[in-house]
């Protein structure tokens, strides 16, 4: 699936969740489900400090594709992080650089994308783009 299709799928899933509590319940469930990051990558280096919540992000580059693992101390952020990874992991740097992340707004959690709240998720998205940009530049030059 393309990044766009992944996002469409998530948006479609959320359309069945009519109330805000159902949506949150689902996100929280996602947040709980799996340890997203190998604990040895939960280092100061991989830490993205938001004003409210913290996110750890680790990137792997294999066969021209980037994959991410991550974690957060806040469970809602963690649930969203897990969706972001579902959407972006396994794509080429170029795809990631070009991707527009719309699903968070579409499912009604746009405040997580507001720079004014300066939370971990937004910083994480920026960081992912930066990684992708870096690998894209590398592959162009090599």
């Amino acid at each position, binding site marked *: 699936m393309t990044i766009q299709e992944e996002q469409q799928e998530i948006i479609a899933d959320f359309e069945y969740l009519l109330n*805000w509590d159902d949506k*949150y*319940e689902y996100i929280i469930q996602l947040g709980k489900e799996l340890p997203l990051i190998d604990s040895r990558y939960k280092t100061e280096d991989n830490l993205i400090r938001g*004003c*409210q*919540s913290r996110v750890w992000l680790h990137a792997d580059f294999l066969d021209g594709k980037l994959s991410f693992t991550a974690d957060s101390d*806040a*469970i809602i*952020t963690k649930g969203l992080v897990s969706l972001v990874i579902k959407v972006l992991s396994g794509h080429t740097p170029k795809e990631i650089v070009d991707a527009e992340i719309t699903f968070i707004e579409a499912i009604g959690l746009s405040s997580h994308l507001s720079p004014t709240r300066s939370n971990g998720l937004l910083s994480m998205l920026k960081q992912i783009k930066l990684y992708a940009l870096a690998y894209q530049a590398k592959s162009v030059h090599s």
Partner: protein
Amino acid sequence: MHDTTTISDPALNIEHLRKDFPILDQTIYGSPLVYLDNAATTQKPEAVLKAMDDYYHTINSNVHRGVHYLSQRATEAYEGSRQKIADFINARHNHEIIFTRGTTEAINLVAASFGKKFLQAGDSILVSAVEHHSNIVPWQLICEEKGATLRVIPVDDNGELILHDLHRLLEGVKLVAFNYVSNSLGIINPVKHIISTAHSYNIPVLLDAAQAVQHMEVDVQDLDVDFLAFSSHKLYGPTGIGVLYGKEEWLNQLPPYQGGGEMIKTVTFEKTTYNDLPYKFEAGTPDMAGAIGLGAAIDYILGLGIRNVRQAEHNLMTYALDTLQDVQGIRFIGKADSANRAGVISFLVGDIHPFDLGEILDKQGIAVRTGHHCAQPVMDRYCIPGTVRASLAVYNNREDVDRLAAGIRKAAKLLLG
């Protein structure tokens, strides 16, 4: 759900005075707003907005230097507000009241001007472990510049300042700066004791009263405090204005802070002489409308009666602590009872991240603050990422508290579920 027509304090009809704050009457995500972020900023009564509107509609003009009618009326209104503030905190002279942008600027003013004149390498400034960043960073900046050090009154597990070492801590200290009421814990500190101890060594004291003046009577002469700072926007007044009170004898000794219009007597390129108090510290066109709005806010509070406000808030605080205590897994950060507490309740629930809890409360229309509340060292002290802070104003009622308790329970169910 409690009957909200029961008014906890007979002197104030809370349901009635809520009508002065129409912003409260709105729905957020489909639920009626419960505004419990008053320590961040309070809502403004109509009388405050009307005073500013009237100013702009009738006499708006630059103050002090105008010969003309509007300028004279504007100046009278602006200086009238200064007098109201002087009376409100019982300052000896109205020229002991300096208008600033807020508490933060008031503290920066003292830090810079006092520091410039009195601080030398090796000296210390003493603050407490429960300060707002605005009462830490200005001192760090000037201490760094002067080679002085910042010393800290520690705090115990309950949030109370540990004072048995105060005499030793005061050695080599040039000024003590601490808050009357902590914005992160809500605890009322033993101000008189600290002030008189500092004074026994001739050390002046600055009191950060940002979380005090809206909740209780503050009398600068009775406290015998040397400097005191507060913000209008936390006192039902407009944003962008606040107050530095300073004893005349101190303010006269301090060099000016900012330079510009109004703060000078004569200017030549060779030599400039400064104006008298309070103008020496008010460079540039002041926030006339803001000052007048703050004056109207003080009129409003005095109209309610500051003791009635304290009593009503005390009753609601007692009710809130009782009600929240029953929420499973709740931990209060800062252990004061309602007699030693003003405005603020900080708490955590189980190991729920405050950000998560705040977000689920928000979805229910309940506005609280989460995070470190600009008091990161307090969070570090308790090894927590932050707290959820519910903070009360005079217009809050028992229904707000009930909604908060129910909201937390619902959030906990969702988050821990």
